[in-house]
């Protein structure tokens, strides 16, 4: 790839556990937390130079109206889609008791290592989700009954913010008058209204989005979500009546920082935030794929209702 990676990004340590406001984290010397991080930061410091606002602005493509131009195909890296909290690798999402230690459940056994869960260092600012006790119990039940409950298994719409860090790209379409995001997974779609649409007329899976520019950050308030969507494959959820405030901040032509503050006093003791970088697909041939998974789950959901079921009696 002949294209040069923007050096400004390397100077910035994006740390999901760093509770400082984004602006501070982007402009100040990265916070030093551990020996490893100190070593890494040391490398970063070698290339540190004073960052002027003009230099930063020059790095970011802009629309005619002067806003950061986010048009393009983006994707999160990492393993937040498995579990947004810090977690070690484990054999499978669905487990059953074994003679010595738990082993993968029969339903997923055939997948072997393909069905195993890679570790992740988490995207929750502060480390863990501040569930209220009842909600924490529901999350644990969700995790136990993942195969029956995870909406992703049935190809249901992912909701916000899960859509952002599914292991699929999404494309932002963005002019000065309209913004829409289309996600490869399940052809999920959101229009982000730039004028206040008022109270959502109906609840929906992807909610109603209202976006405004706060300087160079695109701030989107999402409400009117049904509350059936999950946050990951680990049973984390937000429940009905959730408000998500997303912040999209470009930190270079090909990188943006995504933050989502999640607020629901019925589920959480306080508002909390996830944060992660998003990466532009810089391949000039990059295109959004099609993953209309509805047809892929018909056997799972309706196979037992065939005239001649092909798997036993079905469930």
């Amino acid at each position, binding site marked *: 790839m002949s294209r040069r990676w923007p050096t400004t990004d390397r100077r910035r340590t994006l740390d999901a556990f760093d509770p400082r406001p984004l602006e501070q984290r982007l402009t100040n010397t990265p916070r030093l937390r551990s020996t490893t991080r100190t070593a890494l930061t040391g490398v970063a410091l070698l290339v540190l130079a004073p960052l002027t606002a003009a230099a930063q602005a020059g790095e970011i493509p802009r*629309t*005619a109206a002067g806003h950061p131009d986010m*048009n*393009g195909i983006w994707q999160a890296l990492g393993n937040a889609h498995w579990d947004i909290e810090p977690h070690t690798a484990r054999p499978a999402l669905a487990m059953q008791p074994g003679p010595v230690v738990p082993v993968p459940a029969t339903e997923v056994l055939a997948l072997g290592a393909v069905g195993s869960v890679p570790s992740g260092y988490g995207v929750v600012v502060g480390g863990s989700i501040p569930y209220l006790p009842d909600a924490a119990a529901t999350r644990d039940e969700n995790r136990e009954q993942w195969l029956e409950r995870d*909406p992703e298994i*049935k*190809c*249901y*719409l992912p909701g916000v913010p899960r859509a952002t860090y599914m292991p699929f790209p999404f*494309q932002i*379409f*963005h*002019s*000065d*008058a*309209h*913004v*829409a995001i*289309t996600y490869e997974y399940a*052809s*999920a*779609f959101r*229009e982000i*209204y730039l004028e206040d*649409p008022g109270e959502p*007329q*109906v609840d*929906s*899976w*992807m909610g109603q989005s209202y976006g405004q520019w706060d300087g160079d950050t695109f701030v989107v308030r999402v409400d009117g979500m049904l509350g*059936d969507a999950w946050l990951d494959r680990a049973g984390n959820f937000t429940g009905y009546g959730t408000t998500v405030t997303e912040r999209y901040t470009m930190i270079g032509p090909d990188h943006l920082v995504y933050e989502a503050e999640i607020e629901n006093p019925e589920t959480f003791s306080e508002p909390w935030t996830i944060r992660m970088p998003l990466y532009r697909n810089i391949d000039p*041939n990059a*295109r*959004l794929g*099609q993953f*209309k998974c*509805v*047809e892929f789950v*018909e056997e799972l*959901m*309706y196979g037992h*209702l*065939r*005239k*001649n079921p092909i798997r036993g009696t079905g469930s």
Partner: protein
Amino acid sequence: MSRDRSRKSLGALGALVILACILAVLPTPSAAQSSGWVMPRLPDGTPDLQGNWSNATMTPIVRPPGVAEILTSEQVSALEQGRQDFITSDYEDSDPERGAPPVGGELTGDPIFDAATGGTGGYNQFFVDAGDNIAIYDGEPRSSLIVYPEDGRRAAFTPEGERRVAERVAFNRQFNQYDNPENRPLAERCMMSFGSNGGPPMLPNYFYNNNYTIVQTPDAIMIMTEMVHDVRVIRMGEPRPLPEHMRPWLGDSWGRWDGDTLVIETTNIHPQQVLMGMSNASFYPSEDTRVIERLTRVSDDQMNYEFTIDDPTIFADQIRGEVPFNRLDGLLYEYACHEANYALENVLRGARSQEERERNENQQDRR
């Protein structure tokens, strides 16, 4: 509301047509300025097609036999009044003393409405937004959306086209229509909108949610069909088509500007996608099917949509059509179909239940 909007468009279009005749010798910019309407443009100079649009109309895809391409004003009044009368009668309170409908339901004579309700009142007009006006295109009230072949009907199949239709019919004959989910229509499976709504070509579904959102950027144009939130990403520039074996739903689309007209060329359309559905012109695309669409904004409230279907493998001739897209004031809804698709499950369950009952009756008969 949509009636008022269309009337206004009709008036505006009529005025445009007259002006166009008077000013035919003048260059286009002067004509546009004289009519008082200026093409809205994006900062890069391309026409602004963004926003919400609807192609709902009561003009059918295929021309009814014995009708001219352009309807008289008397025909338009009669057709639109007929639709209003039908809507009014459907809104009337039901007679609480009425008996059960006959087996098979009470049919209204509107084939699409009857197909959807089964004549048993599955939907009434509260749920339906089919398009209550005749399509006005370039100021002409049209009797069909197909304008070529000149009889307003689908071009004839080639012998190869006939062979493929027969092959599909023979394949499907081994199934009862309720045997498997795959035997049900795509819309019932929440795979796509009714008919040819998602496109290409993007045609009305004659039932509801004939709505589209367009967001435009220099590199790519997004067209979202409200029903089943199907998104077409039209990439601008020199086409780099997919390999022949990759045939996604909605096909592979590339766009370019021809003056102020957005031209979209689509190939590699999914072999199971129905084109020109909701009509007796419907067909399955071949590997050679190419659809060319042309979108031209003609006023604040209207966009001209032309399509050409080109496939020498299955058709003896091209098929061309013209459809007005009218500006839609208001927000679109999320059409989350699959997430609550009780219908498909119950359709299959009903068939299994019926089979079980028949088996039991047969056993009793044998005793």
